[in-house]
């Protein structure tokens, strides 16, 4: 339905997106995952007709939108990464203004606004100035504005950045419901693995302007089928232990956190005894060693050798 075809976007200094191919079909929730600066926002700016690609094409229903973006814009809702709202206006005034941009008016607009306010849980705050809103409330209104005209496709650019877990869950549940109840097509951009895992059927993973993996959740996790992810826990680490892990030829990838080290190793290797030996030699007491089924985070670690939130 909506696709990027060999799309490249270069800015003065950086090539933000390199020959990207990507598509979304009707009724899907597609995730676009990648660390900051991966090129996600640039990719969806091209998809949503905000930016023209330097080369390549953007198609909606098999027609290029570069010359005529109107058909896409009619059915598209866009949630920018930024809070794209008038902070000096109230929630209602914002919704009214953006609703009128879509040529809605009068009773119809009023009714729609009430529905949206209910949906995003801001009915009680509809007459408050947005400036006074919490981060979560702003994010919810940011989404609500994009839903006013009943779009068939909604593109959301990191809609949960910097908000409390409660608001975040609320938003995720809402997106899921919109997809299930109204068959809304969703492209969901995030650098949080859990969100994409929870929401999406299909996933694209980007890094440094390139697509590094794509497919269904299962397909992507199979990338790791030959490997295990092992999480080691302790109260603290010492240099000797980390050095011996790093020098081990069987360990592929390492991520060190305060009380947890995550490593990726081939399936056939039994790491338990080896890790126990390393700990003993380093004079370190381990709390636990667990073999995990792979997460998307592990996939990313596998593909790039870096943790996603680096």
């Amino acid at each position, binding site marked *: 339905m909506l696709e990027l075809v060999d799309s490249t976007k270069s*800015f*003065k200094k950086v090539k933000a997106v390199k020959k990207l191919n990507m598509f979304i079909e009707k009724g899907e929730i597609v995730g676009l995952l990648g660390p900051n600066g991966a090129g996600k926002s640039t990719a969806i*700016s091209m998809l*949503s*007709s*905000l*930016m*023209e690609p330097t080369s390549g094409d953007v198609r909606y229903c098999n027609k290029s939108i570069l010359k005529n*973006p*109107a058909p896409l*814009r*009619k059915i*598209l809702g*866009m949630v*920018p*990464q*930024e*809070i*794209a*709202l*008038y*902070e*000096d*206006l109230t929630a209602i*005034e914002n919704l009214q*203004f*953006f609703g*009128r*941009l*879509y*040529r809605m008016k009068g009773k119809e607009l009023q009714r729609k606004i009430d529905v949206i306010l209910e949906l995003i849980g801001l009915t009680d705050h509809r007459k408050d*100035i947005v400036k006074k809103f919490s981060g979560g409330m702003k994010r919810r209104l940011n989404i609500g*504005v*994009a839903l006013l005209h009943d779009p068939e496709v909604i593109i959301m650019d990191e809609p949960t950045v910097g908000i409390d877990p409660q608001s975040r869950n609320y938003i995720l549940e809402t997106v899921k419901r919109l997809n299930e109840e109204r068959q809304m097509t969703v492209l969901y951009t995030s650098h949080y693995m859990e969100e994409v895992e929870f929401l999406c059927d299909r996933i694209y993973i980007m890094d440094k302007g390139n697509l590094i993996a794509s497919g269904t959740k299962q397909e992507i996790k199979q990338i790791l089928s030959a490997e295990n992810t092992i999480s080691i826990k302790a109260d603290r680490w010492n240099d000797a232990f980390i050095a011996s892990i790093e020098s081990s030829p069987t360990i592929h990838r390492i991520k060190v956190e305060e009380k947890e080290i995550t490593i990726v190793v081939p399936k056939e290797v039994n790491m338990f005894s080896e890790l126990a030996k390393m700990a003993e030699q380093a004079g370190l007491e381990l709390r636990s060693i667990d073999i995990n089924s792979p997460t998307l985070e592990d996939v990313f670690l596998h593909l790039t050798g870096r943790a996603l939130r680096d």
Partner: protein
Amino acid sequence: MLWQIIKKQALILLRNPVQILLLLGLPIILITILGTALSNWMDGESIEINVKVAMIEQEDEEKQVNQFISDIESGVIPETAIEMIKETAPQIAPIGILKDSVFKSEELANMIDLHEAKPSEKEELLDDSSFAAVIEVPENFTYDTLQTIMLHEDISPELRVYHNEQQEIGANIVSDILTQFQEQMTFGVFLSEKGIDLDAIQIDTNELPGEVKRINQGNPISSKDYYTIGMAVMNVLFMATAIGWISFHEKATHVFDRVIIANVSKWIYFLGILLSGMIFAFIQLLVLFSFAWIVFDVTWPDLTSFLIVSLFISISVGGLTVLLAAISYRLNSENIIDFFGSVVVSLMAFIGGSFFPIGDSSKLLQTLGDLTPNGAGMSAYLTILRGEGISEVSHHLLYILGFAISSIIIGALSFPKRGASA
């Protein structure tokens, strides 16, 4: 759609008390301070000012007085009255008083340079821009004045005063002097100082000599008038920065992206900025001038002309608004707006004469000032405030319109093609 955009800009503006203070409070404070503090200087009591005034007499006052006396003698007036009139008439001959006791008085002699000229020199004098005013005493002025005062004839002779529009201060001073002269004659202060018994000559205080007829530059401009106009044309420029700033923030916060995604033409949006700048500037001018009208009594002889000049200034502010918005969009930075608001506005206001009549001191500066939209607007306002018709300022209005159109075109050319492009 357009209306929605304008309404939204208005709401945002109104919710920013700091902006409102800058746009309305600041000019009002400045008008009050400058208008009051500089009123002495502006209204002509400074000794550093040297005003050249020419006086053309189409009569000979001595002959006029003699004529008056001999006409009375041949009339039916009682002998005693004739004696008294004979004695006082030469003393209250108005032109003599004006020349010797007013213009050449100790207080004014330093400031006023009175040049007595022959009627044949009139054209030459009117062309000479070094004179702030030319006073023409018509034929039989003295005779008629004496008749009015002493015989209660209803003649009301008038002096003709030609003011030089390039010398605002000087022309004002002359006006003020003539007005005071008139008042002094009216209340007889002047005469009583001369030791004349008012009762004896029975001056009729309703019929006055020396009424000033304003032929060229009519109403004098007070310092409050001047600074109301000066501050209004300066501060209206801040409307361009205020709306430009709001518009830039629509881009910075990606609200502009939403407008584009909604498939609203960017030209509608552009027009929205233009009209917002224009309409709000117009309202701002109306508020400032209404305030000045109520508090400082700044009144316009012709309201329509005033509204037309205000409209043209507002159009140029609209043009500046889109220009600033477009450039800030293009450069992706609000620095241009800040720079304009802090440096350029002050400069333009200075050259345009908002702080003092800079053009009075040099023809070049006057021309330069009229090349700024605010300066041209100020000259237009001053001209119509003096009572001249709108046709007298058409060249200023044309210039302002040209400036506005150029700004709009440059703004349109630099307006970015799409939303989030770099």
